[in-house]
């Protein structure tokens, strides 16, 4: 275990877990946990060492998401979403001097980055935009109706997708990095949701301005296919795994307490606990294998955009999001009323509510429809260890 992972675990157990119920009840930003993550320099770890970061890889960041997910899903989701934005900058800044300087600042000041990809009018289709970059004399302006920008009020910068020009078709998009002093947010809706309440995913009218050099040079299609999509699915799945793992831990503790009451036999919930543990292992294996698959192709544009890889990353997302809910449901059956109530050490309501966001966060139907299309084109299935 790296010292960074150990530090993240400590933040999870000692800080995030302590405030998780209050964050959930108040639908408030998990400021204590995020301050602790900043304090331990865990926000900029993916920035390369040459730019003042730690050059951490995807597996380490995913391990941190898993660790945080066990304590406070909102904290973990905020951390994951932030790292997805960082990955887009790190992988696609190229030689762009502005972006490289921003990366340095990101590592030095531990900036927290948010995302405005969704847009009112296009539903959850991340690969189309209505808003467009309007360029004049090397400067751009941009207005976007964003139905959700998680922690929009608390971040230090936002990555925004838009059409390349006002004449461009909806699918010809770019993504632009806008630091805090480059945008204004007017809140249009709040976030009183079933779960992930601490992400404070309010809706905003966003107005941004800046220099054209803030636009990531690669088309968003490439940034999305090579980085945003796989990294999102990997980090989200890791934190959903964390939520499910904590549910199984609670179920195990429940069965243990029952076992103490009736020494000798296996308590009634034991079978279901075994089933939950088996599903959890399936989920974990999927995350681990997918991480290895990503590590094997990261850096190769060709391999990152190959069909079998895209299919694998989509399957990871739809699979993990469904398994998380199933595992927690099993754990709930094990704990019975003690799990259903909100006031016991075995409570699972928050876990279940948080996990239900997984299938909607880029709707599984949308992902499955895309996978179906890819499968039409796919010719061969890779071998066992390929």
């Amino acid at each position, binding site marked *: 275990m790296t010292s960074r992972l150990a530090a993240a675990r400590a933040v999870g157990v000692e800080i995030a877990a302590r405030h998780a119920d209050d964050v959930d009840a108040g639908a408030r930003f998990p400021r204590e946990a995020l301050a602790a993550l900043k304090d331990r320099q865990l926000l900029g770890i993916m920035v390369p060492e040459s730019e003042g970061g730690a050059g951490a890889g995807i597996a380490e960041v995913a391990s941190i998401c898993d660790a945080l997910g066990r304590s406070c899903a909102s904290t973990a989701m905020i951390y994951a979403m932030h790292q997805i934005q960082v990955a887009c900058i790190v992988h696609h800044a190229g030689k762009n001097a502005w972006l490289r300087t921003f990366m340095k600042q990101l590592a030095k000041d531990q900036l927290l980055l948010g995302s405005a990809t969704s847009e009112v009018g296009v539903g959850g289709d991340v690969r189309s935009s209505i808003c467009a970059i309007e360029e004049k004399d090397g400067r751009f302006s941009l207005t976007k109706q964003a139905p959700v920008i998680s922690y929009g009020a608390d971040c230090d910068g936002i990555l925004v997708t838009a059409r390349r020009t006002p004449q461009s*078709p909806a*699918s010809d998009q770019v993504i632009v990095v806008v630091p805090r002093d480059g945008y204004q947010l007017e809140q249009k809706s709040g976030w009183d949701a079933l779960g992930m309440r601490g992400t404070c995913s309010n809706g905003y009218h966003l107005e941004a301005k800046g220099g054209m050099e803030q636009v990531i040079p690669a*088309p968003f299609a490439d940034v999305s296919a090579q980085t945003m999509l796989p990294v999102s699915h990997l980090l989200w799945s890791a934190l959903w795994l964390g939520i499910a793992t904590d549910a199984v831990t609670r179920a195990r503790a429940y069965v243990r307490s029952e076992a103490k009451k009736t020494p000798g036999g296996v308590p009634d919930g034991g079978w279901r606990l075994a089933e939950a543990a088996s599903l959890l292992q399936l989920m974990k294996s999927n995350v681990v294998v997918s991480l290895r698959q990503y590590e094997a192709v990261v850096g190769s544009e060709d391999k990152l*955009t*190959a*069909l079998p890889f895209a299919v694998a990353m989509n399957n990871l997302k739809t699979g993990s999001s469904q398994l998380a809910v199933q595992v927690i449901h099993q754990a709930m059956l094990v704990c019975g009323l003690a799990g259903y109530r909100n006031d016991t050490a075995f409570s699972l309501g928050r876990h279940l509510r948080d996990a239900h966001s997984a299938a909607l966060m880029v709707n599984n139907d949308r992902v499955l429809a895309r996978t179906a299309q890819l499968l*039409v*084109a796919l*010719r061969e299935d890779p071998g066992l260890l390929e």
Partner: protein
Amino acid sequence: MFKIHSEIFNFGASMAQPVQARVRAVLKESALLQADVESLADDADLYAAGLTSHATVNLMLALEEAFDIEFPDRLLRRRTFSSVNAIAQSLDEIGVYKEAA
């Protein structure tokens, strides 16, 4: 491969590059682009002309049908379908160009 930018030369181009002309016909027939296919240069970016990644699969299927070929997995990349010339080059790799010429 030489590139022709001017519309005036399109007639000449389709004579000299039958594959490009046939690719255009497929693009036009499949109606996957918002832009006018005829006004696009052979090296114009089809994604900038409105080809979505979703539509790329349909384009691939239409090309396979029209040319009676199969794209191998290694060619199923965004870049393969990025322009009329890129498509022609991939078809050339598969062996279409020689047959058509």
